[in-house]
């Protein structure tokens, strides 16, 4: 490959590195989320169990969003198809599981 071909690639790569700071923030944020979850579970007896479950679910959803958007680059350009496929997969898996469980056990 000639130097001419490489040039646009390099500029793209430099562009990607600009998100370093955001990555550190995301990293700290996911650790904080994990800590909150741990502390809530650890303080059995002091916190209402129902509250623990709800909080855990909320933390889990937030965690997934952060992991997906920052570490899996879902927020970046050119990731439309992976997002489409993930949503598609979630819809299909969700339908299949809910329907089967509903018919089999209720």
């Amino acid at each position: 490959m000639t130097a001419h071909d490489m040039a646009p690639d390099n500029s793209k790569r430099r562009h990607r590195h600009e998100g370093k700071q955001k990555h550190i923030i995301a990293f700290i944020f996911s650790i904080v989320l994990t800590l909150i979850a741990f502390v809530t579970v650890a303080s059995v007896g002091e916190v209402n169990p129902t509250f623990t479950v709800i909080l855990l679910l909320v933390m889990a959803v937030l965690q997934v969003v952060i992991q997906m958007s920052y570490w899996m680059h879902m927020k970046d350009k050119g990731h439309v198809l992976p997002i489409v496929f993930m949503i598609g997969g979630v819809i299909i898996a969700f339908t299949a599981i809910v329907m089967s469980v509903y018919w089999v056990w209720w």
Partner: protein
Amino acid sequence: MAHTVKRHRGIMDWLTTVDHKKIGILYLLAGALFFGIGGIEAILIRIQLIKPMNDFVDAQTFNELITMHGTTMIFLGAMPIILALMNVIVPLQIGARDVAFPFLNALGFWTFFFGGILLNLSWLIGSVPDAGWTSYLPLASVDYSNSHGVDFYTIGLQISGLGTLIGGINFLATIINMRAPGMSFMRMPMFTWASFITSALILFAFPAVTVGLILLMFDRLFGGNFFYVPNGGNVVLWQHIFWIFGHPEVYILILPAFGIISDVVSTFSRKRLFGYSSMVFATVLIGFLGFMVWAHHMFAVGLGPVANALFSIATMLIAVPTGIKIFNWLFTMWGGSIQFTAANMYAISFIPTFVMGGVTGVMLASAPADFQFHDTYFVVAHFHYTIVGGLVLGLFAGLHYWWPKMFGRMLNEPLGKVTFWLFWIGFQLTFFIQHFLGLLGMQRRVFTYLPNQGFDKMNLVSTIGAIMMGVGVILFLVNVVITSTKPKNLGNDPWGDGRTLEWTIPSPVPEYNFKQTPLVRGYDAWWKEKMEGNTEMPAAEPVGSIHMPSPSILPFMMSVGLFVAGFGFMFAKDDFGNTALNFLFGNHLIAAFGLLITFGCMFLRSVKDDHGYHIEPEELEQKGVKA
């Protein structure tokens, strides 16, 4: 920097290849082998049913035959031939030099192949799967099926399913990332679109069956209770899991055929495909709806009227995008200068035949009517119309159409037409009459029937048709042999009317596919250039050295490992009457050894850096002369 690569020759070349075209040919060979086995099973089934109270095979053997016929044809016959065409053609149609993950591509083939071999070795070992291709429980549980038959089914299909899943992911990555400059999604040929959606269906559907098979394997081999009712398991759960996979599977089978038909019909009508964007839309919609209809296989289970009604409607909805496709093919032909080549005869005959399969499909989708049709030969006729009259005709069309591109030789046309008529008439004789057998009340999966119920003559006709189909397939093989003796002297575009990128490069295709990546300027890229008077595609890059992946034996070894491990797990509890063997199998040593091979190869692959090699421009020139 890439090092010089050791080039293998002869059989080692085929065992180590990561070239998508060679892997495609391997898929074709393996598919043909299993298709042949499944075909022989079909003929034996029909011979048994030729007259009432026949004793050609006994009931047990008959159960084994129908189970293995269905399983082999779907998983090991049809799927690999589809993957063969996808492998060879899709990278060419999008202007790529290979698939996204060539190593994985080889791994996908070899796991599929060894899974299939494991399943079919059941015939030699003597305990054959006999619970039907759907392997419903409790029939498939240890209580009712205590030979190793169903174990072969669960383990063989897991290993081969792994290969299919790998293939599907590979094609998704390839089509998303490796399109040539200018090849936007809405300029992709229909076969590539169909392969794309099929791969997505594979990605979403195969995990379901893998989970199901693992649960069934745990029930059978390790004393699990997922489907064991006395301990709280549920047998209907298996049906859900199986059909959540099983219904998308039939669209995995038919969508590539839709793609092939679209390309073949438009080429041989010398017209742009009518309604291209609606074709794309219909394909996507069929793919999506395909996941929302699985319970129509379970109307008779007793899900209740609301569920049955919902799934009836969802199923009938699929007829809409399918109808769009049918009319688009008709309008593509309308006013075209149609050439009746063998490929096009298969493609054109596909349309009415598939419509018949679709119409009976809508009949079956109506839940109240389904209570009448359920488990009769009407259902057998329906799905053979969609799979044989749909998929197999599509595959034959595709094979005739792309054979010159794959092998550099044109299949014999007159012989191809004779084959077509034999196969097509045989097909109609076999299965048309089965609709009426079903309506008269003949049940599926019965190994024989009493005389004078009105079944006798119809079954005879059906068997005669099956034998005609068999002769047709043998003629096709004769055609292949005759063709292979002819010289390789074809140009880039042997049909003269090629529309897509695969017809811009030599036949057979050189290992690097495109000397220069083409620049795509519109839908039907090659046709567009031809209409503007160009004799070759504009290039998107200067001639340069081409980066190629290195061949590797690791995919083969990994699959051998899984194959060995499969046997190890299956026979762990058997008594061989031999201390050494009992020790080896009983302690899972054989299984561990197999897994060690597989994981060892994975470890090797991870630590060994292999950057592939380069083909330099001077080498391209030498090869260019030869091609």
